[in-house]
């Protein structure tokens, strides 16, 4: 009996262990989802998309302030690395390059697996597919802007382990084919995306149209202005677009823009909520509540882990959370380029005709009567941020013109004729070489968050980075219309943007020229990542950044001219007059200064029009032809 029992026991043990050997190791992992599981649940698909949204490449975003501080539009007020921006004489050919085929491959895999998914509803699937294609086109657009034509790969490539990789090598597509791809993709996916103004951080119909509009405009201007730099092209078209295609592209750009303007993708509008036009322009970037102007943004959210420190690194330093900030100092070059309200360009009145300084009662008076976007883009001395006045002034000027100043923020000295020391320099600077103070006499205002806590390292800011906004669409429409020989239409669109900035005298059809359009984009879109790509597509970058150093006379002449070179950032420093008994005592004067730290000049070489494709890439794939003019 006992024996029998043990036999039964043994047998039952064997029986229990008798899984087929083949199944013995096939236990589903508990921590990894397979493709079928992942693509069955819309929430999981969305989380994959979120990853792709996060990995998109942008230029000049709130995540990377140094890229905004370039191009002589501002002075990078931080020692160490960023200071090299004003010390270098030219950009390396590799600048702005991007080559993330990992992202492309994963997007291609995503689209392939999404197609194979069985349990998603049709309308969910459609929208996800449209978003995947939107993001792939978005990245290809970034690539073509920087590299010219690149291999256009729309399938996930698979390695066959046979040792010969040649079948995976693809040649570069032509530049126009890249733009055609972006435009065609946007047209194809548009119906599958929601026409909803409130969808901003995901692809929407408005975003697709805006991207189509911008891509077509870029392609059109490369076609039209390519003849300015004939050597920036390749015989096989990887770089350069034939001039004959210009009109076609401009027409597409105008059509796409007008679809947004007519409201077919939702009612977008210019942001107009504040009677103070400068504050209104600044608020456009920090007001997240149903902002009608932003079309496609990279969003951030407090306490979610996705916040940025842009306010922390750029806020006026004095009294700020963390006592930190002040890195981007917009240059006088940019400040003086904002128009007067009568649509003319004029230098800031620093001296009168005889060369004597002009005295001002208030610090801000010198900037009066200008385009309201100036105050919305640049924090001027004497204005307020977070209800605190920005304390920017460089010292006391005595009767003989000599200056009493200090070498630390807010330092004190005894003025002649007085017994007590007084503050002789602003708590926000400027002091030459003192990092994080207003070296140029200005701070940046755009993208700065006025919410308390936004400047602290722990909290951060949640204001979004706007990738596409309605004002740009209007300006794109204006440019396309102008190039299509409809200056009246162009003036109409431009005047809408200008009216919001307080420039209420409308421009007529005869006033519109490419220089006007270039200027308008600089005033409206500065620090939003447009300047380098705009100058590149107009083939004007080597004119504006010609590498020739500037002097004061140079700076003050031809303001607003599209050919004016802009190679070094200048400063405008306010001083208080100390001259007891004189009517000028206690007033403000300004001086134009070129910081001794500015030793380099910006030189844009022909080889910078398209970024360098590095030798590793070309070694691995000999089909890639190099970009012109770089060696």
């Amino acid at each position: 009996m006992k024996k029998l029992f043990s036999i039964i026991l043994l047998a039952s043990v064997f029986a229990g262990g008798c899984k087929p050997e083949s199944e013995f190791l096939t236990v589903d992992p508990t921590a990894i989802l397979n493709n079928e599981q992942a693509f069955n649940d819309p929430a999981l698909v969305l989380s994959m998309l979120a990853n792709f949204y996060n990995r998109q490449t942008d230029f000049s975003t709130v995540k990377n302030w140094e890229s905004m501080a370039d191009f002589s539009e501002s002075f990078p007020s931080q020692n160490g690395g960023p200071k090299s921006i004003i010390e270098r004489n030219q950009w390396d050919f590799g600048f702005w390059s991007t080559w993330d085929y990992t992202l492309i491959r994963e997007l291609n895999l995503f689209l392939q697996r999404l197609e194979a998914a069985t349990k998603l509803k049709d309308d969910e699937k459609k929208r996800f597919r449209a978003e995947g294609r939107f993001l792939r086109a978005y990245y290809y657009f970034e690539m073509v802007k920087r590299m010219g034509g690149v291999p256009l790969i729309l399938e996930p490539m698979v390695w066959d382990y046979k040792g010969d990789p040649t079948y995976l090598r693809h040649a570069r597509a032509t530049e126009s084919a890249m733009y055609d791809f972006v435009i065609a993709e946007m047209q194809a996916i548009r119906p599958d995306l929601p026409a909803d103004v409130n969808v901003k951080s995901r692809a929407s119909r408005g975003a697709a149209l805006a991207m189509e509009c911008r891509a077509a405009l870029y392609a059109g201007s490369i076609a039209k202005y390519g003849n300015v730099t004939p050597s920036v092209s390749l015989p096989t078209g990887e770089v350069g677009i034939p001039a004959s295609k210009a009109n076609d592209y401009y027409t597409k750009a105008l059509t796409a823009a007008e679809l947004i303007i007519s409201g077919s993708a939702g009612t977008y509008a210019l942001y107009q909520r504040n009677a103070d036009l400068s504050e209104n322009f600044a608020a456009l970037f920090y007001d997240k509540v149903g902002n009608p102007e932003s079309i496609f943004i990279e969003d951030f959210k407090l306490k979610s882990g996705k916040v940025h420190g842009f306010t922390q690194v750029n806020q006026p330093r004095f009294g700020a959370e963390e006592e930190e900030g002040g890195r981007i100092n917009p240059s006088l070059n940019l400040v003086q380029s904002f128009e007067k309200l009568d649509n003319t360009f004029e230098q800031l009145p620093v001296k009168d005709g005889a060369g004597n300084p002009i005295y001002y009662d208030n610090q801000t008076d010198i900037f009066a009567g200008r385009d309201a976007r100036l105050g919305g883009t640049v924090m001027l001395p004497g204005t307020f941020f977070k209800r605190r006045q920005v304390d920017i002034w460089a010292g006391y000027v005595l009767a003989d013109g000599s200056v009493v100043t200090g070498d630390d923020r807010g330092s004190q000295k005894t003025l002649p004729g007085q017994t007590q020391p007084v503050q002789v320099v602003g708590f926000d600077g400027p002091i030459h070489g003192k990092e994080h103070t207003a070296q140029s006499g200005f701070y940046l205002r755009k993208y700065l968050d006025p919410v308390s806590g936004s400047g602290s390292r722990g909290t951060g800011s949640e204001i979004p980075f706007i990738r596409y906004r309605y004002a740009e669409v209007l300006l794109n429409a204006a440019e396309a219309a102008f190039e299509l020989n409809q200056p009246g239409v162009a003036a109409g669109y431009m005047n809408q943007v200008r009216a919001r900035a307080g420039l209420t005298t409308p421009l007529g059809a005869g006033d519109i020229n490419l220089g006007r359009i270039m200027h308008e984009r600089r005033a409206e879109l500065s620090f939003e990542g447009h300047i380098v790509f705009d100058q590149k597509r107009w083939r004007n970058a080597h004119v504006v950044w010609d590498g020739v150093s500037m002097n004061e006379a140079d700076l003050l002449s031809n303001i607003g001219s599209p050919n004016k070179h802009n190679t070094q950032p200048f400063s405008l420093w306010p001083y208080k007059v100390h001259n007891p008994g004189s009517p000028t005592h206690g007033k403000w004067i300004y001086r134009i200064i070129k910081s001794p730290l500015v030793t380099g000049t910006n030189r844009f070489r022909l080889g910078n029009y398209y970024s360098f494709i590095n030798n590793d890439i070309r070694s691995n794939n000999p089909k890639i032809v190099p970009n012109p003019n770089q060696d």
Partner: protein
Amino acid sequence: MKKLCSYILPLVALLAASCKKDNFDPPQARLHGRLVYQGEGIPLEFNQVPFQLYQFGFGKVGPVSNTTFTQDGAYSVLLFEGEYKLTVPNGQGPFLWKKQPDGRPDSITVQMKGDQQLDLEVTPFYMIRNVQMAAAANKVTATFGLEKIVNGADGKNVERVNLYINKTAFVSAGGDYSIASSQRGGGAITDPANISMEVTVPALVPAQSYIYARVGLKLQGVEDMIFSPVTKINL
């Protein structure tokens, strides 16, 4: 003692030997020369015109050396012994480099075995001739002539000429390389064989009693400028 022989001594010997094994000699053969046209040097802008050296059979594609000519058109590199190809890339330099029938730049084969001097004969679009520089009353005056070398389909028109002055011997348009310059557009040149330009010398801080000057010629459709040699002028 046995232990010392069997373990430690061989180890020491190995370590001593490995020092030699791990390090190889740096390149020591010097290749140098300058750009010439009929025996005359061609001055350029500092660090703007590149030349490349290629060597076959080492895996990756790309030049082994990608360096630039100095401002008097000279070059110099240290190389290992062996066979190289030297070329100037397409569209670089204010001169014509020999081309292959398919339009790609031709190359010169260089056999390195010890030091070697190799002047590169090229055809510049123009030459700046008879340069005379003088300083008087805080002004630098230059007279010179332009001789068109390349005619026909490859010929280029003059975009502008510049007279640059600098405190150091590096003189050209870029940031640190000029303290003042004057410019004349191509249309304003009536007699290319006889051009006179002048530039006012700004205040020199700290003061110095001499200045360096040279003339640059910019051609339409060519990025790199042609220069005259740098001249030191006593003020």
